[in-house]
């Protein structure tokens, strides 16, 4: 028994220490710095700030609902049926997710979508469809088809089966995807600035303005607290929801999907095609602009200013591999803790892990500066880049795996334990095979996040190593058609690498597990 408990302590300690030292501690330090000299009376509740808070909340809510609706048909198609191009399609939807905001922003502007709330919402859907398709799709693809068939045999129509059987079972995954999309859009920055024509501002924009432009650390801290409270409330509601609505049911391991026939085939392929076409318009602009004379060749030439652009791909790969290993290991440990223990503590642990997604990049970046100089000066160190990426990626691993872990009936674990398996062995033999696929989806997201991450890293003082997004940003910050063409070409390379890696991860089986 002794050994058992130590195992649990270790599994709980690693994520706790990581999130504690690299997120909670810097956050507390920077906020207390801002709030320590705060004279609460000096903060007038300006009408403008209320407006900013309200806008932040409603645009995030509407963006989340829209993303769920837009992603639903494609999620249904790719998780239930096998057809040619299915893998490619699920890989392609992740491409928007990694593209730098400024690149997508200029593509939207070129299409005439700007200066409106519609443009902001459209861009939010564009970026986040992948979150729903992949998070919900993982669970949907593994629901036991017998349930569906039994309901059909008993006389329920397809729609009724969906509403009364499938949807309740999918709720945890839908809620998980919704929570992530909500956090992403709640902290939206570049999209709102570029496409909103300054008629709109989120809390994130306002925090940047107060912290960077005006250096009003107090007001910035107050706004950061408001942002945290909002995010925490949303996450709390989500976790209560998830606990109340989790149904356990045996999942099949990744079985072969059926091939659709007749009307279903038309609907399935139509759904996928429609989603891809909608996402393709901004991407087509991007590809078109990258085809100028010598743009791709230029990526391989050494430029006296920015170096060899294509070299940034190697840098990004190294950071992404480290970040993925960190995020997957820590995220899985955290998921085991969250699902292993129910109750208040586990709920708050889960919630804290999610917070980095909903915290402004400026707050985290400045927090690192204040907090991580002692005892070992980690500021401006290489390790900070993958660590920052992992902070953003861990929620994806947790959200991808927790619904699956929760769906594993407790009696399976108990039966194994009764037969003498140690908790570690139970986890290895029961949980891990079930969760492996979901963990791979999480790992894929972690990798892709690290490849595309720019916001959080840009506020960290960091070594002069250009990742792909940094290189794109550098190419885009000087005039000339060759620079512009290369920035577009490098974006296309980023998109291609992303699609390739995601397809490769999707094909992978973790050795023998994954099937039994």
């Amino acid at each position, binding site marked *: 028994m002794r050994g058992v408990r130590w195992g649990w302590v270790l599994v709980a300690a690693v994520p706790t220490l990581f999130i504690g030292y690299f997120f909670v501690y810097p956050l507390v330090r920077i906020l207390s710095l801002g709030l320590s000299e705060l004279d609460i009376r000096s903060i007038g509740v300006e009408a403008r700030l209320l407006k900013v808070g309200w806008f932040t909340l409603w645009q995030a809510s509407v963006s989340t609902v829209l993303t769920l609706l837009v992603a639903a048909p494609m999620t249904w198609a790719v998780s239930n049926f096998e057809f040619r191009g299915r893998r490619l399609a699920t890989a392609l939807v992740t491409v928007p997710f990694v593209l730098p905001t400024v690149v997508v922003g200029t593509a939207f502007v070129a299409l005439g979508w700007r200066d409106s709330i519609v443009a902001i919402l459209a861009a939010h859907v564009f970026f986040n469809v992948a979150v729903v398709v992949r998070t919900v799709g993982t669970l949907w693809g593994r629901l036991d088809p017998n349930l569906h068939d039994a309901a059909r045999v008993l006389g329920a129509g397809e729609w009724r089966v969906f509403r009364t059987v499938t949807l309740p079972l999918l709720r945890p995954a839908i809620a998980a995807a919704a929570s992530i999309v909500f956090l992403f859009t709640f902290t939206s920055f570049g999209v709102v600035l570029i496409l909103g024509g300054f008629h709109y501002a989120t809390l994130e924009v306002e925090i940047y303005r107060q912290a960077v432009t005006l250096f009003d650390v107090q007001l910035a801290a107050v706004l950061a607290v408001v942002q945290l409270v909002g995010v925490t409330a949303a996450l709390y509601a989500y976790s209560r929801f998830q606990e109340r609505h989790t149904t356990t049911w045996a999942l099949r391991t990744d079985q072969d999907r059926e091939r659709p026939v007749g009307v279903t085939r038309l609907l399935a392929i139509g759904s996928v095609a429609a989603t891809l076409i909608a996402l393709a318009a901004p991407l087509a602009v991007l590809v078109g602009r990258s085809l100028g004379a010598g743009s791709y060749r230029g990526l391989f030439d050494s430029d006296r200013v920015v170096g060899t652009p294509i070299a940034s791909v190697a840098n990004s790969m190294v950071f992404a591999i480290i970040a993925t290993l960190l995020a997957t290991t820590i995220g899985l440990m955290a998921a085991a803790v969250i699902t292993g223990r129910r109750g208040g503590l586990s709920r708050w642990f889960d919630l804290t892990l999610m917070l980095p997604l909903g915290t402004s990049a400026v707050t985290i*970046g400045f927090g690192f500066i204040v907090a991580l*100089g002692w005892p*070992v000066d980690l500021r401006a160190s290489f390790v900070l880049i993958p660590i920052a990426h992992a902070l953003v990626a861990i929620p994806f691993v947790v959200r991808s795996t927790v619904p699956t872990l929760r769906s594993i009936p407790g009696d399976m674990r108990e039966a194994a334990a009764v037969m003498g398996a140690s908790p570690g062995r139970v986890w290895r033999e029961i949980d891990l095979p079930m969760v492996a696929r979901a963990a791979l989806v999480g790992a894929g997201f972690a990798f892709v996040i690290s490849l595309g991450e720019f916001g959080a890293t840009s506020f960290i003082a960091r070594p002069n190593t250009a990742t792909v997004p940094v290189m794109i940003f550098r190419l885009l910050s000087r005039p000339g058609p060759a620079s*512009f063409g290369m920035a577009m070409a490098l974006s296309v390379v980023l998109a291609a690498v992303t699609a390739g890696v995601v397809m490769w991860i999707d094909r992978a089986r973790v050795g023998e597990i994954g099937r039994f």
Partner: protein
Amino acid sequence: MRRALTLIALTLFAAACAVAEPENPQSLRLLAHDSFAAGVSDDTFADFTDSTGIEVEVIAGSDAGSMVNQAVLSKDNPLADVIFGVDDTFLSRAVDEGILLEYESQLSDRVPEDLFRGARGQVTPIDYGDVCINYAKEWFETSGIPVPVTLDQLREPTYADVLTVEHPATSSPGLAFMLATIALYGEEGWLDFWADLEAGGVGVVPDWDTAYYADFTPYGGTSAMVVSYASSPPAEVIYATEPIDEAPTGVIEAGCYRQVEYAGILDGTSYPDAAGQLIDFMLSVEFQETIPLTWFVFPANQDAELPAVFVEHTTLPESPAHLDPAVIAENRDRWIDQWVSVMEG
């Protein structure tokens, strides 16, 4: 368990001691904004390392404003030994927060006095650049509309409608252009100028990238004029896809604002002497002559010669505007708020 903890504590202590040792440095840390860091290669500081034996490690810190804030937030335990890229709009913040050690380079008499903006002895000007409106030559030739030569002409809707500016709260050239209008029209008149631009349909975007690459007519946009830099036309020639003799864009000399970028020694460094040597190197003619083609700004040392492509394709405005850094620091907040209320209604 206890032994392990002791071991960890000892290791950390040893690491802390190793960091704090005030010997002759093997390397110096230079905190710079990302645009400068982008241009740093193995060659940039090679001559400095050869002559002093000191390596230079560049730390990239986002934009100029964030970088100054990072330096302020870490002033008890500085991130670096030298900071570079503090511009005149953030100069007062850096000086007032006391993050800099006093230093005057022996080469500073080769720098025109007005570039110091009154902060001689605190910081050292390394380069300057003029924020100016750029225009697309083809658009003006095709439309037959003459290129404007004064700011007042921009008040006419014909021009205002085809002008894009950056937001002063999120963009450094945007702030500079706003300051230019304040310098030219004064507190009484500048907001009227902007009200006219707004009525005429001026475009406002968050950053330079969007202005130039989304809105400017040479890149498929609908604005024939954008706020950019005097050095943008030579960059158009250098980064053309096919070799060209003449830049497709030009500079309007009215309404330019001169931004100066400074280097300073961060208070708390263990190596103030070496840090001074690094600043001297950055002001030396050999380093200064690499500045234009690497960072597309102009060398502060007047002995440095400009490359031919710069002389040929750019226009240096005769009398670019500038404001006293202290005045900027005192009023920036209010000015931006006033600008926002005129432009956003």
